[in-house]
């Protein structure tokens, strides 16, 4: 389902966090949202899933006006994999996943066989069915994240919103979780920290900076050293990786940057060397 975000403005305590952000996620498209800390990624996602109420702008999902719809109605269309995880109170894995069914259930409605099937199916798609009776708190970070994805799946939503879904995960789980999302075939909007992961898994990328969209496009259009330098203040080198066919970003920290003198491998003259020369310890 298609998501349209137009000119969203949101701020708190007199500070503007989002200054007119527009973006779109096409049907079945996986869109990445990147940008430095404080650029407004999480706030934008929160506006989309109705935790925050924008002061101006329009969000529509398909034909539906997100901002005017009830929380419950939207929960049937949008599923979220949030950063927060259940806290002091411990649920079993199956119970967490089954929560995904709640927006579809009336007050006194019982869980049906179909619900249970959906939950089991969701868990098995993320490979967590064998853990269904385990307590959530006993899982590793990657397993937890997969369970939250399963909950989102059980919600049977048309749009999946993910806020840093790969935080705290080892590389194997990072790839697994994002691969899962990619393979679902639903529209997805994901805030990501890791530019290379964004390049690998997103159809298109939006770059947020200072509460505005700084750039957007396919990964190879967006992920350019100039942009990374401007937005993140970091020198880098980007190449299309021969194995993946996707852009790959290598960051060049001050300490590893080539000195101005002659270098045997002849990397001099590349972009990364432009601002080098800082005294390394």
């Amino acid at each position, binding site marked *: 389902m298609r998501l349209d975000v137009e000119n969203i403005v949101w701020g708190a305590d007199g500070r503007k966090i989002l200054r007119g952000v527009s973006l779109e996620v096409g049907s079945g498209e996986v869109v990445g949202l990147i940008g430095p800390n404080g650029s407004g990624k999480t706030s934008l996602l*929160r506006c989309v*899933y*109705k*935790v925050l109420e924008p002061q101006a702008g329009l969000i529509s999902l398909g034909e539906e006006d997100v901002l005017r719809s*009830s*929380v*419950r*109605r*939207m*929960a*049937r269309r*949008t*599923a*979220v994999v*949030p950063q*927060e*995880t*259940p*806290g*002091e*109170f*411990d*649920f*079993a894995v199956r*119970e*967490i996943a089954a*929560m*995904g069914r*709640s*927006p579809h*259930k009336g*007050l*006194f409605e019982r869980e049906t066989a179909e619900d249970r099937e959906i939950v089991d199916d969701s868990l098995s798609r993320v490979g967590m069915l*064998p*853990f269904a*009776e*385990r*307590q959530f*708190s*006993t899982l*590793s*970070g990657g397993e937890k994240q997969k369970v939250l994805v399963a909950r989102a799946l059980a*919600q049977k939503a048309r749009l999946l*919103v993910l806020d840093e879904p790969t935080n705290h995960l080892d590389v194997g789980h990072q790839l697994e979780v994002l691969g899962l999302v990619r393979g679902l075939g639903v529209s997805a909007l994901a805030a990501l920290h890791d530019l290379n992961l964004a390049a690998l898994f997103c159809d298109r990328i939006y770059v947020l900076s200072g509460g505005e969209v700084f750039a957007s496009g396919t990964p190879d259009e967006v992920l350019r050293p100039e942009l990374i330098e401007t937005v993140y203040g970091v020198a880098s080198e980007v190449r299309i990786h021969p194995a993946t066919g996707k852009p790959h970003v290598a960051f060049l920290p001050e300490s590893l940057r080539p000195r101005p003198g002659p270098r045997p491998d002849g990397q001099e003259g590349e972009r990364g060397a432009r601002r080098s020369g800082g005294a390394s310890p």
Partner: protein
Amino acid sequence: MDETGGKGEGGGKPVASGFSGVLLALLAGLFASVTLATIVGPVWISPLTVWKVALHEATGFLRPDWSAAEGQIVWQIRFPRVLLAAVVGAGLSVVGTALQAAVRNPLADPFVLGGSSGASVGAVLVIAGGVQFFGIYSLSVAAFVGASVAFVLVLALARSPGGHTSPLRLILAGVAASYALSAVTSFLVLRADDPEEVRSVLFWTLGSLGGARWEYLTLPSAALIGGTALLLAQSRSLNALLAGEETAVTLGVETDGFRRRLLILCGLLTGTMVAVSGTIGFVGLMVPHTVRLVVGADHRRVLPAAALSGAILLVWADVVARTAISPEEMPVGVVTSLAGAPFFLWLMRRKRGAFGGEGG
């Protein structure tokens, strides 16, 4: 990985079939507790007589072959008292369960939002201040009004200018109001001319079911049944709320409104229970946790299990309260805390995975 999944006791059992077993066991336990509790008391009356009296009073059968005092003790003192203990125990546990979800804090209990200190102010006004508006019901009415006023106050104070009511604000407002109201209580107690009044206030604040009458059962029972049904209907939303603030929104719960309705319901229930029993501590805090350790956190299971467990706990606590130092009585709140806390700590140590012991 799969072997660890089968390590057993820590986590996995709460499956639907296991739960009906638990529920059945609790129901049987409650029935047995009420039956036994009515034949135990500071005055020995044979179980046969107890049940003959009950049958006679309930149906009119049997010709009394027991003394008038025995009849009165069984039917006017013990039965209402045991049943009231069950109702109040269930009520406090259900409210505790719901409030722990509402403010997403494991330390929440029915009195976290100022209910006990508000009720205490009302009670002290009656006991030491001589305020008497409703005859014999003055104390109950004052306690209910006190609890409700405190509650409304906390709800109003906790609202941010934007109209949001966050759990943390609620707890802080509750704590602040509790301190303020406790200060009022202390002041009123210190102003009391008579040490006997001070003692009465103390007895009241430690909780007692000694004032039980049949009339006291109607309203709390209705509140308990209605309240529990409403909460059960909302158990999916309660689960979502317990899982997280944003999570709840993304699962379709309109958190602000839901929480406010939840709190008002809890406030009314708490006020009703406090009005007939004083402030009985511990039950509403620990029963929900204990139950969660056994049946998991899903409210469709926790709510009925907590209600039944709380009822059983308070029935037995009250048996101890009225027999341990007979013919004197102990405040039942002292019993619940003295007996319940060690049990709970034992349970917590046994289930090492719970409460973040092996989390992450």
